[in-house]
């Protein structure tokens, strides 16, 4: 301690006493505020909730500033998280859309929906997918024919010719990209890029020995389009092979090539959505047979309807024999009555006086009708009456003799049989004229 004292007043705690309590007191006085703040800061930093509350107000500003300053870096940093989420969300949204459309199609009875369902069944896909497929129309925007060796543009057709000024430079770059990919990934093997996808655009590439075609398309490529590209290219290769082999860069040597490319632009134009992919041979046969059967059914139905109508008309028409001649109808039979008169004299005489009085009910003309249903004949105008062993079939022409309530008494002559008379319910008898009142009177009834 003596050394400390001897060392002078600049040697620390000795100046404040042996135990340094004064020094600590001074420290407390000087730094107590700072110590308190440091303590608070430590507690905030060590407490996750407090730390989050502290940082969150400036976090948004910090991210915004970083995006503004270096957008690409932020995208790269966030892509592994957000990219996957976006892809999943988009895929799920498309699935939902497909399900929703499919459900709508299943419950719809519009001709279009029914047709889509039918097509979907034929092709083994849902009608929703069919509809989505048609909602993405295929269109060919541009076609480049490019010399394979030099990358020079041989011909170019475009749906928008006014924007085609860079076509020769584009051809060169496209060729450079193909060469780059071939050299980098081909590793000596034969091969070609056959398509380049960018957003909803697709560059379909088809190559031959001397040239290649690049078609810039949107939408879903229809079946057979590749084949059409190939056939076009091979046709050009065949027709202009010699020119292409020694191509000097003079497009005048390739007159007519553009005409061969132009039809490719017509495949599935955006204005007219592309028809669905062609049916297979089997599907065509099934469709043909189904159409044939349907046609036959329709014809048969029409013929049957015509025959029925004619039959009914013929049945309802007045018969040629139905001339207005009175036909006496013996409705009563002679009934002999025996009258015995006894007298007191032995001159009893017995006289047989037949008092037959046939009463006939003449009708002006027969009332004809057609049976609208097959029915049993009964002996009287009620269901309690005895059922005769005869039934009159639907469509038979009968003559109405009398009406009692809801019953008609009819006469019917079966083919080759005896005339039958009986009662049927009026609901099975179709009449074309009103029943004469004299027939309605239940005189002929039981």
């Amino acid at each position, binding site marked *: 301690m003596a050394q400390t004292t001897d060392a002078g007043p600049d040697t620390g705690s000795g100046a404040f006493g042996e135990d340094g309590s004064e020094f600590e007191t001074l420290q407390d006085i000087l730094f107590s505020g700072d110590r308190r703040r440091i303590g608070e800061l430590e507690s905030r930093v060590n407490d996750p909730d407090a730390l989050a509350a502290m940082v969150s107000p400036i976090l948004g500003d910090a991210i915004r500033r970083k995006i503004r300053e270096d957008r690409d870096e932020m995208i790269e940093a966030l892509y592994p998280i957000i990219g996957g989420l976006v892809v999943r969300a988009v895929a799920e949204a498309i699935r939902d859309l497909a399900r929703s459309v499919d459900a709508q199609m299943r419950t719809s009875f519009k001709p279009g929906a029914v047709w889509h369902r039918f097509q979907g069944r034929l092709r083994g896909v849902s009608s929703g997918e069919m509809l989505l497929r048609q909602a993405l129309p295929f269109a060919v925007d541009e076609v480049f024919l490019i010399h394979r060796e*030099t*990358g020079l*543009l041989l011909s170019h057709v475009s749906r928008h010719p006014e924007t085609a000024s860079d076509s*020769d430079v584009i051809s*060169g770059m496209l060729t450079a*990209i193909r060469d*780059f990919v071939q*050299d980098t990934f081909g590793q000596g093997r034969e091969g070609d890029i056959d398509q380049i996808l960018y957003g909803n655009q697709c560059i379909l590439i088809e190559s031959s020995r001397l040239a290649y075609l690049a078609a810039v398309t949107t939408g879903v490529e229809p079946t057979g389009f590749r084949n059409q590209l190939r056939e076009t290219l091979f046709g050009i290769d065949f027709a202009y092979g010699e020119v292409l082999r020694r191509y000097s*860069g*003079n497009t005048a040597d390739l007159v007519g090539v553009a005409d061969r490319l132009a039809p490719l632009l017509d495949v599935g134009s955006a204005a007219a959505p592309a028809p669905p992919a062609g049916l297979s041979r089997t599907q065509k046969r099934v469709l043909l047979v189904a159409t044939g059967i349907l046609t036959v059914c329709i014809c048969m139905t029409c013929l049957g309807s015509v025959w029925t109508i004619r039959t009914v008309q013929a049945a309802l028409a007045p018969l040629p024999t139905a001339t207005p001649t009175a036909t006496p109808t013996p409705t009563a039979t002679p009934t002999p009555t025996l009258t015995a008169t006894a007298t007191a004299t032995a001159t009893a005489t017995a006289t047989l006086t037949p008092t037959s009085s046939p009463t006939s009910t003449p009708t002006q003309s027969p009332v004809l009708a057609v049976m609208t249903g097959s029915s049993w004949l009964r002996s009287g105008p009620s269901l309690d009456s005895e059922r005769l062993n005869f039934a009159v079939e639907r469509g038979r022409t009968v003559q109405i003799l009398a009406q009692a309530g809801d019953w008609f008494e009819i006469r019917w002559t079966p083919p080759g049989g005896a005339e039958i008379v009986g009662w049927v319910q009026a609901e099975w008898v179709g009449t074309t004229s009103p029943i004469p009142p004299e027939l309605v009177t239940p005189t002929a009834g039981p």
Partner: protein
Amino acid sequence: MPRISKKVCLLGDFAVGKTSLVRRFVYNAFEDKYLATIGVKVSRKTVVLPVRDGLVELALLLWDLAGSEEFSAMRASYLRGAAGAILVCDVTRPDTLAGLTAYVDDMRRVAPNAHFVVAVNKIDLPDARLPYAEVDAFAASLHTSCYLTSAKTGDQVEETFRHLGRLLVAGD
């Protein structure tokens, strides 16, 4: 007027000024970033030239090849089918002239009938160290001409392209 297209390559070591020549005087549809990604960028320079029976419009499709070593493996593919090349060297770097021989060899392997023009670039700079005699000798060995160009001032650039164009048209 008939229109003819030809593929032409710009060859030379790294930083001799090939891209500057292209950037100043030709039509650019694409950005220079393609040079760094796939090692080539295609541009177009159209010149009208006299021929025996009139004029011809010649579209030079210029393939500006990256001079760096990393794309040397791709060079043969990019040179294929070229009708000619502009060989560019830097007047301040004598070694860039020596490097042109390798490019000529590469070119002749895949395009034996190609025409060449030599462009000694950056002549606007004060410290020219390239002996012109060597340049002349090199051009003579290729049976062609040499132009002293400056992409900065535009000196002789147009003439260089037109000369190559005349060689290509005359060669048909």
